[in-house]
């Protein structure tokens, strides 16, 4: 079964997880977390990072028992044929919904900042086509693409750094802990949505040619770097905008870059958006692959090319439904809650079942 073109290295795994984690959320994260935990938002990011690390341990604990299987296979092995199929279907729906959410968030930001008159279907269609174009290839090729575009992440950071605002007010961060412990923890929830992506391990472990420990290392490293980048962006935004102001600015990172002009480039925010689109695309591709693999498994299709077309079309059609920004926000909130089922509840459940099973067989 181990077709060489269908495998990835541990480095490629790292890039894939990193690129999936950093996604649409980058632009709005400081705003979202500030809504809840005020200027202690950066602590929330750290907490969210810690929680996602715990979840990584759980998912890793589950998948390491079944090398050569994706979550779809594991679910069927552990929960029986029917329940397994049910779980697989749920995961497919989850992947498709996230694809849809990414499309909606991406088009709304692009429409707001750059292309106000372009209809949303055109913007989404471009993303869908680009997504399908890559996802229909084998996993290794997808991974190579991810590896290649990871160079953009440091560029994004450098772009923020060179345009580092001259007047930062570090005192906006004090007193630390002003929001209260409870709010800081609730704030971690809104960060966690932006941290999603590590659950890709549920399918990618099958293709990774590495031992368990290096898989864990790669995923944890990706998670750690994501946390660092997020903390950095949140801190900069918090020091640049005064607390009341940031509550008015849904995309602080972009807004910050908007004021800076170089001799040649007038609007860094547009440059940033162009790079950000690629980073969004990688997240979209990841979830498209995630759902497509599931569809292929359920219907016993060879490869995931045909499924990719189906999943992408469904996601595109769904993404056309919400119209106002409030509807998109609402969907985003719902998916945020639902995602816990897929990154925490089901993996924990399956892990427990597998532990029970192995206990019984002894």
């Amino acid at each position, binding site marked *: 079964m181990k077709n060489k073109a269908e495998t990835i290295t541990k480095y490629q795994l790292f890039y894939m997880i990193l690129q999936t984690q950093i996604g649409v959320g980058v632009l709005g994260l400081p705003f979202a977390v500030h809504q809840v935990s005020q200027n202690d938002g950066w602590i929330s990011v750290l907490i969210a990072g810690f929680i996602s690390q715990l979840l990584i341990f759980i998912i890793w604990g589950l998948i390491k028992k079944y090398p050569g299987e994706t979550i779809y296979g594991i679910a069927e092995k552990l929960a029986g044929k029917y329940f397994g199929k049910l779980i697989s279907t749920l995961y497919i729906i989850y992947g498709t919904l996230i694809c849809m959410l990414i499309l909606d968030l991406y088009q709304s930001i692009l429409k*707001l*900042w*750059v*292309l*106000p*008159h*372009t*209809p949303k279907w*055109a*913007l989404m*269609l*471009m993303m869908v*086509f680009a997504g399908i174009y890559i996802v229909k290839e084998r996993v290794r090729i997808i991974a190579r693409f991810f590896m290649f575009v990871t160079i953009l992440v440091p560029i994004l950071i450098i772009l923020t750094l060179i345009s580092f605002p*001259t*007047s930062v*007010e570090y*005192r*906006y*961060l*004090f*007193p630390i802990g*002003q929001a209260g412990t409870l709010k800081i923890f609730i704030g971690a929830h809104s960060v966690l949505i932006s941290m999603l992506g590590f659950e890709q391990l549920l399918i990618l472990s099958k293709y990774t040619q590495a031992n368990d420990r290096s898989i864990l290392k790669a995923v944890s490293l990706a998670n750690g770097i994501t946390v660092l980048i997020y903390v950095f962006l949140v801190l900069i935004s918090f020091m*640049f*905008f*005064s*607390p*009341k*102001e940031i509550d*008015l600015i849904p995309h602080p990172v972009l807004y910050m870059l*908007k*004021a*800076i*002009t170089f001799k040649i480039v007038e609007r860094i*925010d547009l440059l940033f958006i162009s790079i950000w689109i690629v980073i969004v695309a990688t997240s979209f591709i990841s979830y498209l692959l995630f759902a497509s693999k599931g569809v292929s498994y359920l219907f016993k299709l060879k490869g995931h090319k045909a499924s990719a077309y189906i999943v992408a079309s469904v996601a595109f059609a769904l993404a056309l439904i919400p119209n106002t920004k409030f509807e998109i926000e609402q969907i985003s909130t719902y998916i945020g809650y639902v995602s816990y089922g897929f990154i925490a509840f089901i993996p924990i459940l399956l892990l427990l079942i597998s532990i029970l099973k192995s206990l019984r067989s002894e």
Partner: protein
Amino acid sequence: MKKFLFGILLPLLLLTGCWDQHLIKDARLVYAAALDRTENGHVRGTVIIRGFVASGAESGGGSPQNEIVSGVGKNMRETRMNIDKKLSDSFTGAKTRVYLYSEVIGEEGLYPYLDIFYREPSSSLNGKIAITNGEAAKYLEIIRKGNTLVAEYIEELIISSEKNSILPRLDVQAILSKFMDPGSDPVLPYLVLHEEVPEIEVKGLALFNDDRMTGFINTNDATLLLTLMNKTNKFLRFSRKVHVDKRQDIENYITIDVYKSKSDMTLNNVSNHSFTVDFDVNLKANIIEYPSDNLGSKKEFKKLEGKLSTMLTKEMNQMIRQLQDANSDPLGIGRELMAFHPKVWKNLEWEKDYPNIPINAKVTVEITGNGILN
């Protein structure tokens, strides 16, 4: 199948640009905008639009020409739409370098006049902003100063004052934070027009309480304020009278060039309802003009240092008094309190209590050099 898909895809990708194209040939670029209030409370906007007049058939390019257009509306957007009606092509504000607001608007509250810029992604938030003494539109009517067009003239005027530590480095975006921060207030350049010359002068800094202008300080005090805020730029120079008995008056003066300036704010004697603020300012400077000479001895240096220190300390405290009278807190004392003594901040009624806080500044000047002449 592949060809079919390609046939759909290619035109789609090519078409996407059509909805959102902005052609520079259809745009009338606004370089400067001046905002006034009419007698019945409406907004009058006056803008400078850059056009090109071909100077000769072969020379190419052509010389830039200013066109001045104004319009009245109930709010900013309506004013802008009314100006647009008078223009051959569409109004484009993405390149605006200078925003001028009349003092009347400043005193009423500036924020409602800025919202339009903060809300639109294509507006230029890195333009300079200034408050004008009297009607703002008059400033643009100068059209050109020597070879420079008025928009550049005002912008360069502000930038050069920034370099000389008279104005803080700021743009439209930077002041939004201060509007929104209860713990600190913005300051903006304050301009005066000499109509007969005509000439525009940087007169000092307009002081604000949130977004309302409440006073102003002259350029001399502005430099002191920037020193206190640690916001000094390339040049920081002080000329002061240190003697009274010289043959010619010019010999009584000294000019120092400060190459290192550091100001520390500390809150002392903090109790539940009161506290004092101390500023400790250290300046390291070189003498760049001193006709009295005789700088050979260490004693002479010490004497000058002492004189300058007391002089600047006194001026600094007078300047702070002016800030408190205007109930303006550009130093961010409120922010310091919120950050490190949040309980005291809650107990105080900042608007009422700020003017009465004991604030004390102490300046220490250290002269380390005297140029190539003793």
